[in-house]
């Protein structure tokens, strides 16, 4: 339970911190400090248990089906790390309280700080690899938010983004690697994985697992070649740098490598990948650290170099090297965090971290200087400090490396060289900042900071000294528990003494110290230039920026080839995919025509189709410049279709097709008026490309059309399948109560389809209305068409609205059309009522009435009609749908499902025998909706001309 509490406390604290007011510095610090301190206390109190039992566990079920469990596991190694995270966290909170300016919005800082602490504890205490990856990514995300804490500064934003991109990518790789690893091991539980070491190393996926996990660990620990993000992360507030980017988060990578060391280490691939990256980082970053101008820059490169040392130790495939690595993890955290704190203090008190401007601060801030000198000495590996001990172990390991000759000699040399660099940059840092003549032109006058700010640093430095002088007493048992937890029974014997006698490692240490001092004295101290010799041109940030820009532009370019904003291209692709798919996939040429013999061809019918086909071709031919002609031709083709239905005795279809043709053609013609003109004289570019394009288009279009025709022919020449059709024909009268099978299917058997379709019609009408309500036609369409101009003369719309009949040429037709309206109403009702037994139905009836209404508008003009005939198409639509729904819902009262037809047959006193059915109500709904929808579209178009007239009058442009 304590395990859960350790992780839970920081998260709880974070939640609390987020809701405190922006200026509550003290409350925030108390809250964060309390959370961190409590977590530290619990961790410390758990040590006896860990030492005695080996491993503490807490398992809670989460998603067992996925093999996901909440599993916390603390062994000696995890304990050491947990102590590092919580203890360091407590110190940094104290430091941050005094570091942050009163103007800073601290809730954000402390809440993300605590999120990070919780996530990092989650990483070290996870007993489940997937859960660890989750916490791992959370550390990346919280680090992102903390680096960009001062996000008004471009550097901070850029650094944060770089860190997130690199470590986030690494996290994804780690995720992949862990997935593979868990699959090989047969579970994601850490114990299971650790037990499966032999299988893992023998598995063919081992190289992939290693590569992916190494990618995760090396990016996180800022190892070569992914090291470049860490120096840029230094734009974070210094407490963040001290905590995340030296003591804890960057250690997650090496933590993971050590954690999985028993499973993955011991192979050549491990040696080259991990050891190689470590060595490169160790030497390269040490070299770069010597030439940095920013105090934090020096520390950042030094951190990379020291992490390289740890990585190299882990990569050496030796148990003793692992012990040294774990030891150095703890040592590095103490001296580096304390140095970062010193850098922050200097920055805070002087206003700059520039090594070129700082000088001689030891007079103004002697305590800070003393602490920094000791910590830097530990970093350089001066005897009697903790850095010396682990560095000696490292030197010893390089000497006793069990590898071929050139590696056995090369490695100690490289290690010594890195030691020289390390001494040199430590000296340079201290000498530049604290010694020499006092600096003159600093932004603030330097003075010693408050004691509380020095306290955390002092505690850390004390730890450095204590470990350095009496290692066995201070850290010995804990180190043994930690390494024992990783290595188990294989843990080697070693001694943590300060003095091991005169041996090669000691010699190397002294060479490093002497060489470093020499290098500093001879070269660095006198060097005024701010550049890095030899490696100036290699700039990680530049490479990163170039890569990302290339990624973006490359993606753009690829996208332009793989996608198109043009509608034509999309249309072409849909048809091409359909045609190509049909040709490729199912071998359509293998389909034979059916066995049915074609009927003899009637010349009249052939002529009808010749005309219809010619009309259809004409539509395509004229569609570009002569829309009116195209629509008229389309009407011709539609008419031919209607006649075909008549010819083959399908009166319902013919009636419907005919009325639909009429209404749609008229509505489209009305709409055409508002489309911008297309001028034949403005031709597109000529030449070969358009011709090629057109040939391609005609190929696809022709192919699709012919293919469809062939399909239809193949189906029609086949005997009809005995499916559900016979049932409809036989049962229409006995069960459906109607003679007209088509109508019974529409309103009863498949009434639900009709129900849906009328809804569609209603929605389309609403859409047209909504679209046109805001539509503003192009200016060139505003002028009255010539024909209308000639007819109307100067009659103003307002006059005609008052008159009995529209003025002008339309007077006579108006009389006729008004007479037509009641007749049409009657006819439409007739079609509605007879529909169940004879051709007709609600749909046809509705369209007939709608046609009559359209005629009123056409002939009378919108103003004139609407001042007399108020149709509320919206209500017609709504009532229609409501009636249809009511007809369906009524069935529920009889205990039957929706749309079950209910009939009543009886006699009424005056009317006589009567048959009433819910089906009729349904059809009435269809009827009303069709009228409403058609009229609504008509009104939407009609009001267009009213608005444009209004517009004309308003602008004074009457003619």
């Amino acid at each position: 339970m304590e395990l859960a509490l350790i992780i839970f406390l920081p998260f709880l604290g974070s939640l609390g911190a987020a809701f405190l007011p922006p200026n509550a510095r003290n409350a925030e610090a108390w809250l964060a400090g309390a959370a961190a301190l409590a977590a530290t206390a619990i961790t410390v109190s758990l040590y006896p248990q860990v030492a005695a039992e080996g491993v503490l566990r807490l398992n809670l079920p989460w998603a067992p089906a996925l093999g996901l469990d909440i599993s916390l596991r603390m062994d000696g190694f995890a304990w050491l790390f947990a102590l590092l995270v919580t203890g360091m966290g407590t110190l940094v909170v104290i430091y941050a309280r005094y570091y942050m300016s009163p103007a800073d919005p601290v809730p954000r800082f402390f809440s993300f700080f605590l999120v990070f602490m919780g996530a990092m504890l989650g990483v070290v205490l996870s007993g489940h690899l997937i859960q660890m990856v989750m916490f791992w990514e959370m550390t990346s995300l919280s680090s992102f938010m903390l680096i960009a804490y001062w996000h008004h500064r471009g550097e901070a934003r850029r650094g944060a983004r770089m860190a997130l991109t690199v470590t986030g990518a690494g996290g994804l790789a780690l995720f992949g690697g862990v997935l593979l690893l868990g699959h090989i091991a047969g579970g994601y539980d850490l114990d299971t994985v650790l037990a499966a070491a032999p299988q893992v190393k023998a598995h063919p996926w081992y190289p992939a697992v290693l590569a992916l996990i190494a990618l995760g660990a090396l990016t996180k620990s800022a190892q070569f070649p992914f090291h470049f993000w860490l120096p840029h992360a230094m734009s974070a507030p210094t407490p963040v740098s001290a905590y995340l980017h030296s003591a804890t988060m960057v250690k997650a990578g090496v933590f993971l490598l050590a954690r999985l060391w028993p499973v993955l280490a011991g192979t050549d691939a491990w040696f080259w990948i991990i050891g190689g990256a470590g060595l490169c980082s160790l030497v390269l970053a040490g070299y770069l650290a010597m030439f940095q101008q920013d105090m934090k820059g020096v520390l950042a490169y030094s951190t990379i170099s020291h992490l390289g040392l740890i990585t190299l130790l882990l990569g050496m495939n030796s148990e003793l090297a692992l012990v040294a690595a774990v030891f150095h993890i703890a040592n590095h955290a103490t001296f580096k965090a304390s140095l970062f704190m010193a850098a922050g203090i200097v920055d805070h008190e002087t206003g700059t971290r520039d090594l070129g401007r700082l000088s001689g601060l030891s007079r103004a801030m002697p305590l800070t200087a003393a602490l920094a000198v000791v910590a830097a000495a530990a970093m350089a590996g001066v005897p009697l400090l903790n850095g010396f001990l682990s560095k000696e172990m490292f030197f010893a390991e390089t000497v006793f490396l069990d590898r071929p000759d050139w590696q056995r000699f090369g490695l100690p040399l490289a290690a010594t060289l890195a030691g020289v660099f390390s001494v040199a940059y430590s000296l340079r840092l201290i000498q530049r900042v604290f010694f020499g003549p006092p600096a003159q032109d600093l932004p603030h006058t330097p003075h010693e900071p408050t004691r509380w700010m020095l306290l955390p640093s002092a505690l850390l430095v004390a730890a450095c000294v204590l470990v350095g002088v009496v290692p066995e007493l201070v850290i010995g048992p804990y180190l043994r528990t930690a390494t024992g937890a990783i290595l188990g029974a294989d843990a080697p014997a070693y001694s943590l003494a300060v003095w091991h006698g005169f041996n090669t490692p000691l010699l190397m240490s002294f060479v490093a110290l002497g060489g470093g001092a020499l290098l500093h004295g001879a070269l660095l101290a006198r060097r005024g230039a701010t550049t890095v010799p030899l490696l100036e041109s290699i700039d990680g940030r530049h490479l990163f920026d170039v890569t990302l820009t290339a990624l973006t532009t490359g993606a753009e370019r690829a996208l332009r080839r793989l996608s198109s904003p043009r509608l034509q291209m999309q249309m072409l692709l849909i048809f091409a995919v359909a045609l190509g798919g049909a040709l490729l996939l199912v071998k359509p040429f293998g389909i034979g025509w059916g066995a049915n013999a074609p009927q003899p061809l009637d010349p009249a019918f052939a002529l009808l189709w010749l005309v219809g086909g010619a009309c259809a071709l004409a539509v395509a031919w004229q569609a570009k410049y002569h829309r009116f002609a195209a629509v008229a031709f389309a009407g011709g083709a539609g008419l031919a279709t209607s006649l075909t239905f008549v010819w083959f005795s399908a009166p319902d279809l013919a009636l419907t097709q005919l009325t639909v043709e009429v209404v749609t053609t008229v509505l489209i013609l009305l709409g055409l008026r508002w489309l911008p003109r297309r001028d034949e004289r403005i031709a597109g570019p000529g030449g070969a490309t358009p011709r090629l394009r057109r040939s391609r288009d005609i190929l696809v279009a022709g192919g699709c059309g012919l293919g469809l025709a062939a399909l239809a022919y193949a189906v029609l020449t086949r005997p009809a399948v005995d499916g559900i059709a016979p049932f409809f024909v036989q049962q229409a009268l006995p069960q459906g109560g109607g003679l007209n099978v088509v109508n019974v299917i529409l309103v009863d058997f498949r009434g639900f389809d009709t129900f849906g379709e009328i809804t569609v019609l209603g929605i389309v009408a609403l859409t047209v209305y909504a679209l046109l309500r805001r539509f503003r036609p192009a200016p060139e369409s505003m002028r009255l068409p010539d024909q209308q101009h000639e007819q109307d003369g100067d009659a103003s719309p307002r006059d005609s609205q008052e008159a009995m009949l529209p003025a002008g040429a339309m007077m006579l037709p108006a009389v006729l059309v008004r007479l037509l309206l009641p007749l049409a109403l009657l006819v439409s009702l007739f079609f509605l009522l007879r529909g169940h037994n004879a051709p007709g139905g609600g749909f046809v009836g509705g369209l007939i009435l709608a046609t009559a209404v359209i005629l009123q508008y056409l002939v009378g003009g919108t103003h004139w009609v609407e001042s007399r005939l108020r149709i509320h198409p919206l209500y017609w639509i709504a009532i229609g749908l409501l009636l249809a729904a009511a007809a369906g819902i009524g069935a529920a009262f009889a205990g039957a499902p929706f749309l079950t037809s209910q009939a009543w047959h009886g006699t009424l006193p005056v009317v006589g025998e009567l048959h009433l059915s819910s089906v009729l109500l349904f059809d009435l709904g269809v009827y009303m909706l069709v009228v409403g929808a058609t009229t609504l579209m008509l009104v939407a178009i009609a009001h267009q001309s009213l608005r444009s007239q209004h517009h004309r009058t308003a602008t004074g442009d009457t003619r």
Partner: protein
Amino acid sequence: MIQHLPILPILLPLLAGVLLLFAADAHHGRRAGFALAATAAQLATAVTLLAAVDGRIDVPWQDGGAVYALGNWAAPFGIVLVADRLAALMVTLTAILGLSALIYALARWERAGSHFLPMFQFLLMGLNGAFLTGDLFNLFVFFEVLLAASYGLALHGSGAPRVKAGLHYIVVNLVASLVFLVAAALIYSVAGTLNMAELALVVPRLDADTRTLFELGALLLGIVFLVKAGAWPLNFWLPSTYAAATAPVGAVFAILTKVGVYALLRFSILFGQDIAPAPFKGDWLFYCGLATIAVGTLGVLATQKLDRLAGYMVVISSGTLLAAFGFTGTTLTGPALYYLASSVLGGGAFFMLIEMTERNRTAAADLLAISFEAFGLQERHESEHPDEMAGVAIPAAMAFLGLAFFSCAAILSGLPPLSGFVAKFALLKAAIAAPPAAPAEQAILLFAALLLSGLAGLIALSRLGIRVFWDSERPTPRLQWLEAAPVAALVLLCFVLAFGAGPTMAYFDATARALHEPAAYIGVVLPGSRP
């Protein structure tokens, strides 16, 4: 009453829509209240349905789902609704997303044009109908209902870019509908039935020649579904339409592509993997899904605007689903359904969120930011106070938006600790474990595609997020509670999905198991038939 449960998700929005038509001129508050109540009722119905099919409520149906015969005409002659686990899941997702988007729309967008509320209800009706129906032609009808409503909604708010993108969308979908009609006719002409369960029975019995005709029909049908699902190369219309649509519409459109995915899944399983026609066959779906992920990833990397980015995120999630459903074997279905739920909720929240964050931002600021980034220039306000150390306090609205953005980004690109990560984990775990039953290269490709698309999402979202949220020169957007609440609710649901991964995954797995036994589905729809 309970026996009418399956029709309610269709009937409720219809009636609500119709009544809202009467109320076009009514007082805004009353209209909004009614729409809200109606949609909440749908959510309650959907949840009841979910509980019913999962066996948590006592219902008169057998296990496997409810069959509702419309007009009391038994299948295969009449139309039936089939409410099984998958349908109930989709209906519930629709209701959740619909309610959130509606609440969001009530704050502002509803008044940006006419008839938003009825149209919105009709869209929900179409979606629910498409998920519930067990009839091929009825599926077409509900596709039409939802498309017709989506046309209106895509154009809602007018403005040249919206109309331009909306008209492309309309034309593409009209063509798709035409193809659907041809496909349905072709399939009916050879199979003699439209009932999906009976189709599954009839198809294996077709002779070779007729079968070719059937496969042509199925091919066309598959193309239609792929267009709806936004599969490459049939998805050029998607990013611009989604980007141009108003925020609540974009949010509810997040589930629109899933209709196509749903239909593909339903039919490919009903047809059976061994005899499924080409576009429904595993391999085809899988590689089509991979191509879609790839193009979506490129789009995510290339785009410089949040709304288009969201569109490409939808493309990636569609591709992931297609690839997962096309993956050989049945082990990925459950995880893929989990992914579907997570991406629908996260995507919906994202669309609303970006509209809130993009308020008060000028296009010029964007352009400047891009060029600053490309040339690595110092930003304009930076040199004025280089040594300023104090940070900028983030007002509460920005803090909320930032957190929500963060969460949505995590959900959509599959970063921990939200549901997106759990979904990706479940998918990848199943994919790795699939060989040797499935080809190893499929596992490797899916593995790479999911990780790389996640990385692209991380890169693009962090880039645009930084540009939008840490631009100190912009005023803080004004938010209303009505707008913040649905986003927060959707994100919270994703938390619930992640932390309740145990029970939710159990439901998704049960759904997948039921799906992969089409005999059960057929048995429920056509009692007495033997496959």
